[in-house]
């Protein structure tokens, strides 16, 4: 890249300072060379990203699709087995449980996360003393790694010595569940922690959306006699709906890919109750070396993500307001 550009610097200098017929012809040649370079130059700028994102990632997306129809252990050559992987997946009770677990996680975490982060954003969207300190604190879990957060929550969730059950007993008189050790409570426990971890992120997106709503709209609504509730439903919610839509889309896409929580906290247990699609794909690929089966399931995950996203884009016409 550097060589190319210094080349152009010289031709640029020659083109402007040239005198006489010889140098004019030379400068025309230089100019056409420069034109040719100008045409390829943009491709040099986008080359690295094109190699990585378009060629390798794009190629991987295609290769993965094909591998889904093979049996492959990463060492010997892939063997074509048609739709056997997909057939196996849908016939398998475990896979159905995995799908169920994944949807359960999404349903437990995504709506609550979006609702709570909107509530938080409304709370911190005020010019009052100390508000930035609160915003800063709420964002702490977002910047820390899921692993660090997961190990401390595992400890909080400890049924005998954990802080959470102690507080439930002392403050609420409730006998807490066995959390990560219980087939019923492990997934809700993971969802609760994930909501806690991600809430600050969505809060900031909502906050940016709220601050983009022109003050004049609120003033006009007030003049028209709208109270705070009416201002919220008639100004805030519709004006914020593109942001809400965006938050929903990214939260759902992210939730379907839940991996780190199960990897660190439960490894899919107890009794496969937290075995999620992503973790199951990872297990099949890198613990059982069933690459074909893993890629087929990755495509099922991809298809679910696409269908859910497309459905949201379809539905947005009914509730998203682009003013």
């Amino acid at each position, binding site marked *: *890249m*550097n060589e*190319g*550009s*210094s080349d*152009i*610097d010289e031709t640029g*200098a020659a083109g402007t300072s040239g005198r006489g017929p010889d140098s004019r012809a030379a400068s025309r040649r230089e100019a056409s060379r420069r034109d040719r370079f*100008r045409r390829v130059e*943009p491709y040099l700028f*986008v080359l*690295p*990203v*094109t*190699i*990585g*994102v378009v060629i*390798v*990632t794009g190629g991987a*997306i295609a290769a*993965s699709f094909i*591998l889904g129809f093979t049996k492959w252990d*990463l060492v010997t050559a892939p063997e074509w087995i048609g739709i056997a992987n997909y057939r196996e997946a849908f016939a398998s009770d475990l896979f159905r449980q995995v799908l169920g677990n994944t949807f359960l996680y999404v349903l437990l975490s995504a709506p609550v996360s979006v609702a709570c982060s909107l509530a*938080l954003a409304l*709370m911190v*969207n*005020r010019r009052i003393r100390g508000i930035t300190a609160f915003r800063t604190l*709420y*964002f702490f*879990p977002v*910047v820390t*790694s899921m*692993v*660090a957060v997961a*190990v*401390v929550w595992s*400890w909080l969730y400890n049924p005998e*010595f*954990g*802080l959470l059950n*102690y507080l439930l007993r002392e403050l609420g008189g409730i006998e807490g569940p066995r959390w990560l050790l219980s087939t019923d409570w492990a997934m809700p426990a993971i969802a609760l922690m994930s909501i*806690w971890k991600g809430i*600050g992120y969505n809060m900031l997106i909502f906050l*940016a*959306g709220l601050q983009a709503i022109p003050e004049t709209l609120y003033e006009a609504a007030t003049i028209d006699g709208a109270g705070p509730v009416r201002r919220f439903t008639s100004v805030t919610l519709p004006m914020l709906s*593109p*942001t809400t839509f*965006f938050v929903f889309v990214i939260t759902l*896409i992210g939730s379907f890919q839940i*991996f780190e929580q199960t*990897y*660190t906290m439960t490894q899919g247990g107890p009794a496969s109750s937290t075995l999620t699609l*992503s973790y199951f*794909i990872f297990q099949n*690929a890198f613990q059982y070396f069933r690459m074909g089966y893993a*890629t087929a399931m*990755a495509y099922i*995950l*991809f298809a679910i*993500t696409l269908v859910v996203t497309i459905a949201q884009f379809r539905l947005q016409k009914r509730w998203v307001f682009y003013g």
Partner: protein
Amino acid sequence: MVERGGRGALAGRALLYLLLTAVAIVMIAPFVWMLVTSLTPASELYRYPPSLPDSLAPENYTEVFGRFPFGRFTVNSLTIAVLATVGTLASASLAAYAFARMEFRGRRALYWIVLATMMVPFQVTMVPIFFVIKSLGWIDSHAALIVPSYFGFGMGAFGVFLLRQFFATVPKEIEEAAVLDGASRFRIYWQILLPLATPALATLAVLTFMANWNDLLGPVLYLSSREKMTLTVGIAALQGGELAARIDLIMAGAVVSIVPILILYVIAQRYFIQGIGAGGVKG
């Protein structure tokens, strides 16, 4: 949204502060407990009711560094995160500049393809990319986690989006003088656009650093020997290993892993917030 005076408003404000504080406690308590546990002597870990330790045990930190190469893990995490961030900034800013300012065939299509890859779950490309990395001989090498970012992997697509948005807001007049002077596009990019884009670059840098520092799946897939591990896999290994009952050591490791990123966040908070806001409002 600005509230006006009156006694009701005052009570409302008090209630608001109460709520804000309650939420803050919930958000911070796990970190406080992490720190407390990391300083609890092993003999006092498992007792009921959970309470503050009678005496502090800072030696937990020396123990975790002694029994596990946590110093090495920290250096590894830092090396990978810094070099991967440089790669992402370089590849994304070059492409973003071309997408924002240059005319070429296929520009729109290419830009949309780059953005569309953000939609594809990582699991879809995981196996073929693992095979590519393996074929390159980068298994158990930090190259597997660094070199791809120079080709737009990881945060690259987001970076292209973020920086293109920014470059598009820079008035064209700023470059026109340089073009008339015969400056090359690379020179304009390097000497004019990049310095102007410092805030956007800082935003991308902190988010990329954070993503790499916190990454678990990448190191899990590509690194196998203990000396190569990062802090995140180190902690996960501690949690799943023979020292699983030594919560104090695990928490000490976790504290070591989150302190640098929290410091970075507090210093560069503005950039974290801008990055997320930019992604959110534009959709």
